[in-house]
């Protein structure tokens, strides 16, 4: 097992419009990309378990080959920037991905 942060070159989150948070995990090394992609470590059900969200809040999930990336999107409970907001740009929601174990 190895941590995702050892394999990915970019792990980031950001608003996608006002109602979604989107996450990009990008790999420089093709073999690291293939390893994570094929391991299922970032499969939809694993992401839902990590972030403890119901499946319907994970609105998009895909492998984006041109960028050697795995990308997924979570629907916000309230639109960005409403009172009570914790992260207006959605830029700090990726930290738990660092510790994901990849077989």
């Amino acid at each position: 097992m190895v941590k995702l942060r050892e394999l990915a070159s970019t792990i980031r989150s950001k608003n996608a419009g006002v109602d979604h948070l989107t996450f990009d995990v990008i790999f420089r090394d093709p073999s690291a990309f293939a390893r994570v992609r094929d391991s299922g470590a970032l499969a939809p059900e694993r992401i839902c378990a990590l972030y403890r969200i119901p499946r319907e809040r994970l609105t998009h999930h895909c492998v984006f080959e041109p960028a050697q990336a795995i990308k997924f999107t979570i629907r916000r409970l309230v639109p960005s920037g409403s009172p009570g907001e914790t992260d207006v740009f959605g830029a700090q929601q990726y930290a738990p991905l660092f510790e994901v174990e990849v077989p």
Partner: protein
Amino acid sequence: MKPFTIACPTGHLAFTPLEKASFLEGCRLRPDAIVADAGSCDIGPRPLGADRHVSLEAHQRHDLEIMLLEARRLGVPMIVGSASDTGTDRGVDQFVRLVREIAAEHRLAPFELAAIYSEQKVEDLLGRLARGARITGLDGRPDADAATLRRTDRVVAVMNAEPIRRALREGAQVVIAGRASDCALFAAPLLEAGFSPAIAYYTGKLMECASFACEPFMGKETILGTVEGESVVVRAMHPEQRCTPASLASHAMYERTDPFREYVAGGWIDMSGCRYEQVDAKATRASGAVFHATPRLSVKLEGAGRVGERRLAIVGVRDPQTIARIDQAIAWARGKVAERFGPEGRGWRLFYHLYGRNAVMRELDPDPPSAPHELGVVVEAVHEDGRIAEEIAALAARNLFYARLSGTKGTAGAAALMSDEILVGEPGYEWTLNHVIEVEDIMELVRIRHLVVDGRGGEGR
């Protein structure tokens, strides 16, 4: 068809100032147009709702001046969209004023300017709704009804390339546009030059954030995009930056739910077959986008409405017993607020941001620590009336100090007040509209005003 080159110096004009050196370097290569976007929803709903800019006017003037002087020197169009962060009429008028002032200061020869407005009146939308129009929710939102519109203070329609094309055709050398799809700003001159919608909009998508499409990570540096046939070559202008297939492709998926699709009014770009290849050390060629026109013209509406006044207080906790039972302490404090103002939700809202536990991620945090060394608590209270919001914040913060926790040893106060102040926040706003409306012609929602800017004191039109 001749190749067409666009220079883009910044992904959000004036949010911080653009870097002049790489822009001038790009302009030495004689681009055919200079394009930048100046707005974003990322900054939250308050700038739109309150109709205020977040970029500083000094920085707006800085960026517009550098771009305008080069555009006029080269005699090429300059296109700026989503003026002054929000793309409201106020933003367009502010940028037009700045362009006039800069032209006068530099005694620029007369040029044609088009101001394109896309702000919508809430009453007009209520009228359309009453006549049977549907305002369709995006991203899982329900359709907007009259109540949604009445909660909305300000609305902008997001234009595609068509109004900008029209302004260019009518002779504009400088275009200041209201809210626009970022990619439309780039697509407009390309479509006018005869390129296909696929490569025109795709080029815009790749270039809209300037040097973010290159590596290593740098903001506010210029990139050039040269379109030839159905492909575009994107080139980094900063000496230390490169545009690579990896950097360009990873930018294509930035800030979006679906990396394969980009929607604009009237169609969408399919990027699932796109290819990226390195051209030389600093440039990458992209191709393979397909444009699908939609039979109906759906124009996106963005709207924001005021929720109430906000007051804030800051409290720290160091006692490990209080930290372990912070939820209990908060429940006590909330109870004291409810005793005076009734149940939460009836006119008031209260948020405890627990820095040190899960203030950043709240319910998404998989593993908040149960025993942090310290907790920083930011109390955020919302009410229509600022005086009541102040009272709620005071009760909510000070009752952490007085929290009744059984067996507590620190009987002189269960929390540390950083000060006894209640801080006055900006009013709270929310995104009320993230919707589309169908129209026959985008010009139903957009107005173009042409004027001549004469920096040498001639009469403006």
